[in-house]
């Protein structure tokens, strides 16, 4: 074997000096040599009768390989891809499409199967186009994305998606609950004061002359006329089939929401999981995807340039910090971890205080409503009944900036900080809702003590809460209304005046007041929280999805108006990729958390005996086994079999086996990919080595 001479790196110019490769050595550079390879010819092919890309510099060079180009032409013209995906000029695409159509006609005329498959493909494309054009507000969302970036666009598209969920739920309610209620005739009115049973009497004050302010307060708190209305659970009569459809509606709603959210999050997941080593290509991503091509408007552009510079500097600083952290001594590391542990304890303490506050306030609110002074002043009554909502909103407003501050002290990198802050805020919002429900539960079931004085006779606290489902529904209704009112109030009394102030006050004060940003994470978490409230409340308040549809419609136009009138693009560019993955996940978590109180009420708490479709039953679920028993014998056997262990255990086993198999398959694919990547890298290095030798030999023979 010959001795391989060391290649001379000076042949193609020293790296990192910004020297143009064309200037080195006798017109032959590394790039020009590599461009002559057959693979390069295929990549640069641009269609029949079109010059290959990059050919302008190669005109004088007879190195252009006509054979390679001819091969490329042959391969590309038979490309099975649709014409629009080819990077060729329009005329070349036209020719390709004609070829494709001719081939398809020939294929379909040869066999009927071909003909039908062609028709099927065409009709599928047409339906996809029609569905895409049916999406409402698609133009608006795109326009917002163009001006304010991908993060804000993801907020609005999430809002549209939740609107769709609520519309579907409302349609289901109308078909499965409202229709069966009115079909046999008008439902009965409320039981009066005279009717009393073992479990107390229930008298929602619906009649009599009431002053207008009282009417307004009743509307806002769901009492009075609204209490015995289709809005709340208590109104519905105790018909047999209504019970079945009511339960079926709840489960169908949950299932449909789950499927749609899963479908939406799977596409986001695919994108995120595809980045097999996300952190390792962050610089390339930052440089090549940094500029949002959709930006227009000189102000936004300048802002974006400042942000990019800031982000790049931060990224490089963080890399330096990471290098330094790797070289930290044991003592320094211990100190850092001690600080982090203390801060986490602080966060836990704050969360604990918040949750305890919610629990106490809900309890007090229930007790304060019994006082006579409160009962006589409607305004005070309203404030007392809204106490839990006010407290939760205050906590949700005050604590996240504190988490922000704490996050900055912890010494994590910026991206870690953002994730931690978001996780803590999500935890705060969702768990405070659960604590509110827990407090209600302890009022309803006397703290879970079935033998307590008030709960002994009927299984629930019948004196204070004769119709406890309506009470829970009212709390959710109040949360929904208060959320809407705070959004309106913030827009009207904080954001618009701030914008006007910015316009009136020149100088630094005006600029500080005017740089309002659309905080995407906070807004999205607010949306998810509102939707979780609706999911919890829709069992106790069936018309809640309908109200929520109206609320989200209003919110859409309000946020759009606020955005265009007052906001500028956010200083921290919120990566849309994170939005695609993280937010549907939180939505799923919200769905599961909302299922807990509903399922608990269905299975474990006794339904009210004086109101609602399930009065007189032992538990709400007990209706289902009774209805199954009225079915024919085979259907009965089938349904009862589904509930036995003989069905559940094999199902669990088979699911576990499938999951293990999929994980093993994914692992083996990952290994294969790494192996192939190593091989490709080695081959590429071989090719580059050979090309460099060719350049070196060429320049040597040139100088000789």
């Amino acid at each position, binding site marked *: 074997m010959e001795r391989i001479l060391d290649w001379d790196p000076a042949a193609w110019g020293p790296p*990192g000096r910004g*020297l*143009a490769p*064309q200037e080195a050595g006798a017109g032959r550079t*590394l*790039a*020009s040599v*590599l*461009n002559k390879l057959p693979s*390069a010819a295929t*990549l640069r092919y641009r269609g029949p009768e079109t010059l290959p890309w*990059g050919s302008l*510099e190669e005109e004088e060079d007879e190195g252009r390989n006509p054979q390679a180009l001819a091969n490329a032409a042959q391969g590309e013209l038979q490309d099975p891809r649709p*014409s*629009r995906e*080819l*990077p060729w*000029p*329009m*005329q070349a695409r*036209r020719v390709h499409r004609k070829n494709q159509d001719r081939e398809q006609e020939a294929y379909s005329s040869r066999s009927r199967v071909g003909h039908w498959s062609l028709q099927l493909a065409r009709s599928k494309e047409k339906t996809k*186009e029609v569905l895409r054009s049916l999406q409402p507000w698609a133009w608006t969302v*795109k*326009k917002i*994305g*163009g001006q304010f970036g*991908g993060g804000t666009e993801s907020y609005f598209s999430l809002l549209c998606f939740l609107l769709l969920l609520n519309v579907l739920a409302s349609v289901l309610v109308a078909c499965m609950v409202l229709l069966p209620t009115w079909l046999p005739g008008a439902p009965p009115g409320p039981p009066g004061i005279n009717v009393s049973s073992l479990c107390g009497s229930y008298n929602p004050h619906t009649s009599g002359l009431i002053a207008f302010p009282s009417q307004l307060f009743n509307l806002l708190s769901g009492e009075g006329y609204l209490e015995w209305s289709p809005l709340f659970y208590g109104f519905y009569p105790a018909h047999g089939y209504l019970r079945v459809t009511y339960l079926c509606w709840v489960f169908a709603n949950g299932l449909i929401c789950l499927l749609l959210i899963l479908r939406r999050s799977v596409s986001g997941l695919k994108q*995120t999981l*595809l*980045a097999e080593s*996300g952190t390792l*290509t*962050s*610089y*390339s*991503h930052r*440089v*090549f*995807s*940094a*500029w949002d*091509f*959709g*930006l*227009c408007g*000189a102000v936004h552009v300048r802002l974006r340039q400042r942000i*990019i*510079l800031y982000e*790049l*500097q931060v990224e*490089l600083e963080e890399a330096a910090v990471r290098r330094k952290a790797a070289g930290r001594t044991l003592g320094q590391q211990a100190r850092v971890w001690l600080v982090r542990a203390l801060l986490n304890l602080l966060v836990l303490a704050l969360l604990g205080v918040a949750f305890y506050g919610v629990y106490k306030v809900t309890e007090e609110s229930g007790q304060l409503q019994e006082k006579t002074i409160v009962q006589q002043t409607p305004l005070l009554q309203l404030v007392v009944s809204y106490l839990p909502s006010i407290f939760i909103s205050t906590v949700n407003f005050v604590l996240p900036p504190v988490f922000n501050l704490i996050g900055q002290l912890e010494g994590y990198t910026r991206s870690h900080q953002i994730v931690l802050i978001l996780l803590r805020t999500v935890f705060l919002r969702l768990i405070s809702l659960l604590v509110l429900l827990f407090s209600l539960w302890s009022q309803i079931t006397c703290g879970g003590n079935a033998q307590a004085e008030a709960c002994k006779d009927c299984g629930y606290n019948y004196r204070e809460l004769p119709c406890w489902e309506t009470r829970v529904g009212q709390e959710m209704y109040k949360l929904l209304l208060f959320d809407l009112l705070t959004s309106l109030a913030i827009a009207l009394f904080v954001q618009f005046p701030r914008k006007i102030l910015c316009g009136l006050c020149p100088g630094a004060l005006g600029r500080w007041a005017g740089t309002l940003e659309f905080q995407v994470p906070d807004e999205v978490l607010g949306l998810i929280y509102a939707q979780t409230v609706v999911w919890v409340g829709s069992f106790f308040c069936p018309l809640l999805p309908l109200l929520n549809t109206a609320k989200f419609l209003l919110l859409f136009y309000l946020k759009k108006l606020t955005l265009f009138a007052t906001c500028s693009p956010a200083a921290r560019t919120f*990566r*849309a*990729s994170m939005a*695609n993955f993280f937010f549907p996940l939180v939505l799923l978590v919200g769905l599961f958390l909302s299922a807990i109180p509903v399922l608990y009420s269905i299975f474990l708490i006794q339904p009210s005996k004086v109101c609602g479709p399930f009065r007189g039953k032992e538990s709400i679920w007990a209706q289902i086994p009774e209805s199954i028993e009225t079915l024919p014998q085979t259907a009965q056997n089938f349904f009862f079999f589904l509930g036995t262990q003989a069905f559940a255990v094999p199902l669990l086993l088979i699911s576990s086996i499938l999951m293990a198999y999929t994980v093993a398959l994914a692992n083996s694919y990952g290994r294969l990919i790494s192996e192939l*990547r190593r091989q*490709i*890298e080695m081959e590429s290095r071989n*090719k*580059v080595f050979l090309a460099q030798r060719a350049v070196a030999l060429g320049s040597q023979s040139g100088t000789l």
Partner: protein
Amino acid sequence: MGQCLRSQMHWEDLEEYQALTFLTRNEILCIHNTFLKLCPEGKYYKEATLTVDQVSSLPALRVNPFRDRICRVFSHDNVFSFEDVLSMASVFSEQACPSLKIEYAFRIYDFNENGFIDEEDLQKIVLRLLNSDDVSEDLLMDLIQHVLSESDLDNDNMLSFTEFEHAMAKSPDFMNSFRIHFWRC
């Protein structure tokens, strides 16, 4: 600023453009309107051409730091025909497939058009992104070295198309940021 002959687009032409590009009907008609307003007087839209300056001054491209590269990549002989404008809008549209966007992004970022994104190109990209002359040399070199060490697999200090494609295919933000909405009707 004259106007082309005001002619409606034939239905067959519209269908053909819909099949050959990723644009929807409305988008094609909007671009047609804009084109008619800008092109010189008395010509049929299929034969008229726009200069590079006219396209660069469209609202969607006016503030883009890469507008000269975009115009160079999509124009033929330094002018834009109607079909060139449509092809450009198709590549930048919402519905375009990733492979097409990556292909054209590579061409746009290859400033010296040698078929590779080398250090000179990277330098120009970063300077255009930041649009300021007071970027320190260290920051620039540091950044370029980081990018090359991440994506350059065959160690030739340049990014070939396959390496670029490999890096960008994993970037979910690339598709979102490589979009332009041309319609302003």
